[in-house]
């Protein structure tokens, strides 16, 4: 690996993203603290600290909801992809907002108790056997711990150090945190005097998060089935699996040997794929080891050149080599082993269009 770790890599998009994020959060907190009292039961006015505790708690909950929706949305529609890139800042901020919420709870509910406030928080209610009056604070603590761990391990270093499988498994626990928070609110605030806004907020969030995950799950299953049938029908027609797109480096080729010992070079260049015979028309030099420049391959032996799309040497030369047809199914490259007559134009396969 050649990257060097720096504290944070900033660029314009990230700055805009973070600015929008911070402004939205500040606006939410401001509106909540300014206008929520108007919806309160006037006979039981709430104090400022409780109000702020609620503002930060509900803000963290909404942010967690958005974070969990970004993934499936980006899979349903590529236009949501920009939201995905900076999810880590979103996550870190969410953990921070949730921590402020918890801190208000500690400071307010337990400030006047003679015992240590952390001890008081943990021991004030230990009826874990019941639903009504369940110590929902413990669920909040669990969620907050998970959010802290995820925020603390969001730097790229952790992905590389822990390895992708372990890192991903760790970060999947965001779903546990979400379940904890939903229960935290359902068994806590929602058990009190009816609050239609909070109730509908939580319901909407659960429906949205579950619905989106369900929809993307079905979509992906359908796509995988479609890809499997497409692949099977091509293979029935005699096409061969040449490998995965990722195996081919940019401006390089993967050489595939067919049953009749014919060798085919599949090139990746300018976001496209093209296949030509590996044998140069001059003296059978290995074209797959040559260099790609402006859509042309240069033979490593004596420098003959061919256009990758049609196997023809650029004017004024007249050499021609065989081309092959390719298809991309998902991320798998399939090759039609029947060589086309030398010089036949084949439209290159474009990458990244979900072919």
């Amino acid at each position: 690996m050649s990257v060097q770790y720096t504290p944070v890599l900033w660029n314009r998009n990230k700055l805009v993203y973070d600015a929008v994020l911070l402004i939205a959060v500040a606006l939410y907190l401001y509106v909540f603290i300014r206008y929520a009292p108007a919806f309160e039961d006037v006979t039981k006015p709430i104090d400022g600290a409780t109000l702020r505790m609620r503002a930060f708690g509900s803000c963290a909950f909404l942010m967690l909801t958005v974070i969990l929706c970004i993934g499936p949305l980006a899979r349903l529609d590529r236009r949501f992809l920009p939201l995905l890139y900076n999810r880590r800042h979103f996550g870190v901020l969410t953990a921070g907002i949730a921590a402020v919420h918890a801190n208000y709870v500690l400071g307010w509910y337990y400030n006047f108790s003679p015992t240590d406030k952390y001890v008081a928080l943990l021991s004030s209610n230990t009826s874990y056997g019941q639903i009504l009056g369940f110590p929902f604070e413990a669920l909040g603590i669990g969620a907050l711990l998970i959010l802290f761990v995820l925020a603390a391990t969001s730097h790229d270093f952790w992905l590389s150090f822990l390895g992708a499988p372990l890192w991903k498994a760790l970060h999947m626990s965001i779903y546990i945190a979400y379940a904890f928070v939903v229960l935290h609110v359902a068994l806590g605030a929602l058990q009190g005097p009816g609050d239609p806004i909070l109730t509908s907020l939580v319901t909407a969030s659960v429906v949205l998060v579950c619905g989106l995950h369900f929809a993307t799950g079905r979509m992906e299953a359908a796509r995988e089935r479609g890809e499997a049938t497409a692949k099977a029908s091509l293979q029935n027609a005699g096409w061969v699996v040449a490998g995965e797109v990722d195996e081919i480096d940019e401006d390089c080729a993967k050489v595939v040997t067919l049953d009749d010992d014919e060798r085919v070079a599949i090139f990746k260049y300018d976001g496209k794929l093209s296949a030509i015979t590996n044998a140069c028309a001059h003296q059978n030099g290995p074209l797959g080891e040559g260099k790609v420049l402006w859509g042309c391959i240069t033979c490593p032996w004596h420098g003959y050149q061919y256009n990758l799309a049609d196997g023809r040497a650029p004017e004024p030369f007249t050499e021609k080599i065989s081309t092959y047809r390719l298809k991309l199914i998902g991320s798998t490259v399939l090759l039609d082993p029947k060589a086309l007559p030398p010089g036949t134009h084949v439209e290159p396969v474009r990458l990244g269009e979900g072919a």
Partner: protein
Amino acid sequence: MQTAEFLIELGRYYLYAGGIVTALFLVIGIDRIEPSANGSYAFRPLLIPGICLIWPLVLYRWAVLERTKGHKP
């Protein structure tokens, strides 16, 4: 009350141990097992909270990477 105090004590010692692992890892471990960290120091303080929280996992990965280091080119 007993249990609550016990849990908090437990948490405290967990974090003390995390502090020791953090010091060892940032001074010795990181340069041995993460070549791309060589020469970059500014990002290291960012790792402190993470190591304190998941230090058992850090020790495990450190051990694994030390063992497999020789095998990689």
